[in-house]
């Protein structure tokens, strides 16, 4: 085979693939998701433009246009809840990613203790939020272990109001959520690090490279695509997660830890205003889909340079 024909056949393969030579591979996924995910999504969207309560959830839905969205936006508490949400999502995404990365690099030393510790963390991650949330509620409580320990060593005299101080409560809940995503991020990142050539890694360990340099020149570039996906997944998680808040503070004190996903849950399943719940979910979905577009564009751009 001549060089020229090799090149042209590669081009042929590539263009065939770009034209969708792999379309068959996505058929099962499209089938499953169309059957079981697209319908609920469609219902959710339809619900957010209708007036659906417990009376007609299985009956006729009348279109009300943007009324639900307007009602949500004009709620006097909406601004505070929106700010809470952004702070919450920001902390969970940013710290969850950074600390997950730190954990993955710290554990990437082929030692048994690292494997064990990471496995242990994922093991805890796997426990349902009702368990993890409750445990942290106990630990952070006024009579909880953390406060008692701090008081025993005389670092503080009064218990720290982690979950019931109007300002601190939001940070505490966000930190616990962060705690809950770190094992997942660390595990995925560690798997991604395995694609780093061993020689490069060993060379960087032996050579006098500072830890920061190692992160910057070895770990970071090798896990960039994974980091991007994790950033999106963590962000989506933050925008969807209400269970820790539900267990730990129920949005209180007052509205101090009330976020959009929590409000959406309350509207739909406590107040049975399904439309408003759906509208809030859709609003968050639209926001994240904007980020999703940015993500897919950056992925495409990056990969074109491959």
């Amino acid at each position, binding site marked *: 085979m001549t060089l020229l024909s090799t090149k042209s056949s590669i081009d042929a393969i590539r263009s065939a693939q770009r034209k969708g030579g792999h379309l068959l591979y996505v058929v099962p996924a499209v089938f499953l998701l169309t059957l079981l995910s697209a319908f609920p999504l469609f219902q959710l969207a339809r619900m957010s433009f209708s007036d659906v309560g417990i009376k007609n959830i299985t009956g006729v839905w009348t279109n009300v246009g943007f009324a639900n969205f307007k009602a949500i936006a004009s709620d*006097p508490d909406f601004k505070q809840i929106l700010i809470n949400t952004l702070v919450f999502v920001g902390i969970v995404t940013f710290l969850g990613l950074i600390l997950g990365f730190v954990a993955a690099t710290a554990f990437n030393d082929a030692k048994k203790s690292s494997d064990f510790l990471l496995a242990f963390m994922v093991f805890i991650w796997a426990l349902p939020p009702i368990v993890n949330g409750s445990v942290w509620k106990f630990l952070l409580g006024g009579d909880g272990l953390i406060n008692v320990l701090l008081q025993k060593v005389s670092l503080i005299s009064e218990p720290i109001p982690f979950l019931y101080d109007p300002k601190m409560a939001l940070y505490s809940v966000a930190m616990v959520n962060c705690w809950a995503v770190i094992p997942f991020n660390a595990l995925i990142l560690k798997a991604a690090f395995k694609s780093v050539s061993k020689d490069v890694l060993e060379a960087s360990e032996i050579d006098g490279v500072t830890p920061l340099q190692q992160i910057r020149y070895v770990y970071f570039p090798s896990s960039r695509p994974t980091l991007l996906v994790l950033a999106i997944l963590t962000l989506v998680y933050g925008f969807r997660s209400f269970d820790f808040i539900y267990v730990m503070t129920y*949005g209180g*004190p007052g509205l101090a830890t009330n976020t959009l996903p929590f409000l959406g849950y309350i509207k739909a399943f*406590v107040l049975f205003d399904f439309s408003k719940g759906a509208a809030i979910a859709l609003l968050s979905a639209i926001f994240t889909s904007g980020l999703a577009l940015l993500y897919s564009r950056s992925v495409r751009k990056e990969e074109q340079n491959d």
Partner: protein
Amino acid sequence: MASIVAAGVAGLLLTTMPAVHAAESITVWHYFSGNPTQEKVMTDYKAIFEKENPGATVENVYVPYDQMNSKLIAAASTKTGPDVVVFNGAETSLLVDGGILAPMDSYWNAFADKAQFPASVIHKANGKVYSAQGYVNLLGLWYNADILAKIKMPLPTTIAEMEKAMAAAKKAGYKGITLCGLPQGQGEWQAMPFISSTGFNYGNLNEKALTDGLGIAKRWVDKGYLSKEATTWDQTVPFQKFLVGDTLFAENGNWQAGAAAGAKFKYGVAALPIGSKGKIYLGGESTAIGAFSKNKDLAWSYLKSTYFSKSGQLVVVPVGSIPSRLDSAKDKSVTGNKLLKPFAAEIAKNGANYPPTEIPATKIADAQTAGGVAWSSVIGGTATPANAAKKYIAAIKALQG
């Protein structure tokens, strides 16, 4: 390998396990878990019914509390559901709206003992009887008798006396009171006796009165009688905190009687000292027949021989609940029960219909949430009593339309 697994999965998908529901069997959905005395009521009722109706069986289905309504709605959307539902009595009209409950009119009207039931425990919607309560639950003032003796204080009969006792307790190194400050229905339920003691109620949306009422909680927090942590407590946690033994009072329900029995100190219950204006909701679970029950007659006979019968109602006494029938409430096991006595006195003096009739039936949950948020924000310090009162009243007015 992959194809074998796929075939196995496909095979599994085809074998749908049939649901067994014999003709002479009824399912009862309830949300009692974690409280052995309450769980026992369900198994006792099953035994009573199966003994009275040889051949018939009862399947008690425990549904996690948070999932009860969504499970009922989902089931109703496919025209299925339980034969009997045991649920929060305040939610009758909600469940009627959801098409989940069947009207009980025909059974109820023919019920020989219907006169034994006070109107407040019969829940109607659209003029029809849909559910009735076998017992009533309400809040009282639990006290630690050991601490009370140590600080040499009498049982309080006014809020001022209550505060005096709490001040003395605090001085002696104890905590004042535990209660629920969650920003939702449970918080509103616990707030109501105090915020109504100053004259506020859903029929009298007086902002000044409400500000004063909410101010009680603020005062307790400021003086250190009540922890701000109450904003994270549901109704169960504060009672478990009270049982630790270092708190003078607990505002909590009669259903804690079973849990209280394990206390390592002397305790008792007094009526909440909320004067003549104060209102205490009369809550408790209600029972109804499911709209899609295939055996409504059997479901009715289950209710008739358990929740609605004189002897059946006495089964709930160990839980601490007060039987709803006039004749069972007069039974010795009730009148001779020292713990139940103050509750019975409260029903007569401060008892108020739950859900409040001044709020449209479909907006009850919204009103509860608004009340809970106001209560929680005052305890947690995110709002002053005046601001919280203003917002709460505005929300109620909007709901009343």
